[in-house]
């Protein structure tokens, strides 16, 4: 039961959905639509379990007084504030929106802008044309960096067209080739899952 039932479920759901794709009869379409809608319902619980685990991990760190546990307290406090603001005051409520606009947005927006600085230092210290391949990459990169911003057009009016050509010809060709490879990889993985060969997603391979 513990072993077979999950394999039966993944096999039955998967192959039913595939077969139903080819059979336009109302019954088949309705059942696959229902399965999809249930999927969305179930997926929502994945998020709740994720948040539950986040709390568990953090409480655990605080209890065991692991290094920097004080920061985990801050995390939990803000998680609680946000949840109370949302569930008590509703997501349209002032406090929830205030937190979203003045905490969530600036922090999220700033985090990855840090990379702009690291790109600069890497540009100076690490991006080297050591091989013919790397040279080609850097030349294309420099052309795109100049040709895709207004200064490129200012320097030479043909720049935007040159970059557009790079994007629509060699870039499209290589990206398409990579895409075909990746699709085959995905389809083969999906098939292994449906056949029950691939089970690592069920959790660490233990019984």
């Amino acid at each position: 039961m513990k072993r077979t039932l999950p394999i039966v479920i993944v096999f039955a759901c998967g192959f039913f959905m595939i077969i139903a794709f080819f059979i336009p009869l109302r019954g088949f379409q309705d059942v696959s639509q229902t399965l999809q809608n249930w999927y969305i319902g179930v997926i929502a619980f994945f998020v709740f379990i994720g948040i539950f685990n986040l709390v568990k991990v953090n409480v655990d760190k605080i209890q065991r007084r692991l290094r920097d546990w004080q920061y985990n307290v801050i995390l939990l406090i803000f998680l609680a504030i946000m949840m109370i603001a949302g569930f008590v005051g509703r997501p349209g409520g002032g406090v929830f929106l205030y937190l979203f606009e003045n905490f969530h947005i600036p922090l999220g927006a700033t985090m990855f802008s840090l990379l702009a600085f690291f790109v600069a230092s890497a540009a100076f210290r690490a991006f080297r044309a050591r091989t013919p391949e790397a040279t080609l990459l850097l030349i294309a990169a420099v052309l795109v960096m100049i040709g895709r911003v207004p200064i490129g057009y200012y320097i030479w009016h043909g720049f935007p067209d040159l970059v557009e050509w790079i994007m629509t010809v060699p870039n499209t060709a290589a990206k398409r080739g990579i895409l075909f490879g990746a699709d085959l990889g995905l389809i083969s993985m999906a098939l292994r899952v449906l056949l029950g060969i691939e089970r690592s997603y069920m959790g660490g391979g233990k019984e």
Partner: protein
Amino acid sequence: MNILDRLVKFDRRILFVFVALAVIIPLLIPIGLPVDITRPVKHVYDRVESLPEGSIVVVSVDYDPGSEAELYPATEAFLEHCFRKNLRVYMMGLWPAGPKLGNMALEQIAPKYNKEYGVDYINIGYRPGGPVMLVSLGRNVADLVRTDYAGTPIDSLPLGRAVKSARDMDLVMTLSAGDPGVLHWIIYFSARYGTPIATATTAIMAPQQYPYLSSRQLIGLLGGLKGAAEYETLVERKARAVAGMDSQSIVHLLLVAFIILGNMVLLYQRRKK
């Protein structure tokens, strides 16, 4: 110690200061470089221009604050264009924070054109379930959408009643920062239901979209802040994106200089050996 050797060894935080200045100074003292228009952006603009009044455009806000700087200006510019053309906007989001950010843009633009909520535009909020949800949504919207983002029953809003399936959607615009996003709109929605898709993506994702432009699975593309600046120029609403283009240009020049300088060091070191 040679000057080039010293250049490589010095603290990278000095480079950080250079970058900060290259961003700040052009914002304070704008140069006003003209923004050139690329074809993929023009195609989006032309498609919106060609839609008859009252057409329903799905605006899917599939990003979060992490990409707000790149995609929010595009959101505003695109909405401005839709409302000016009297198109109806059906907003949703595949990312939890998307519809809230989209709503900020709606609140900015809709009053300018006296648009009424529920009739001319609607926001149905966050839709979980990613690709699977899109397959389901295209066949029967009512299965998934019961209320709008504020909890109002969807049947009480005229525009909510008007959209029953993918057939009622004339164009989908996805403002996309990753997964789920434009890829899923193309292969899970458009491929099944034939709805045309246009997109504004982060610059990181933009090169990845060219195969779909070439296969016409995508109508057009606004790539990153530059794409937004082009759209702002086309709809004659110069705002944050155009303002940022001077800084963008200067920093790019600076980085190209860094790459060239860095590689000169490499050449020099090789020759020394």
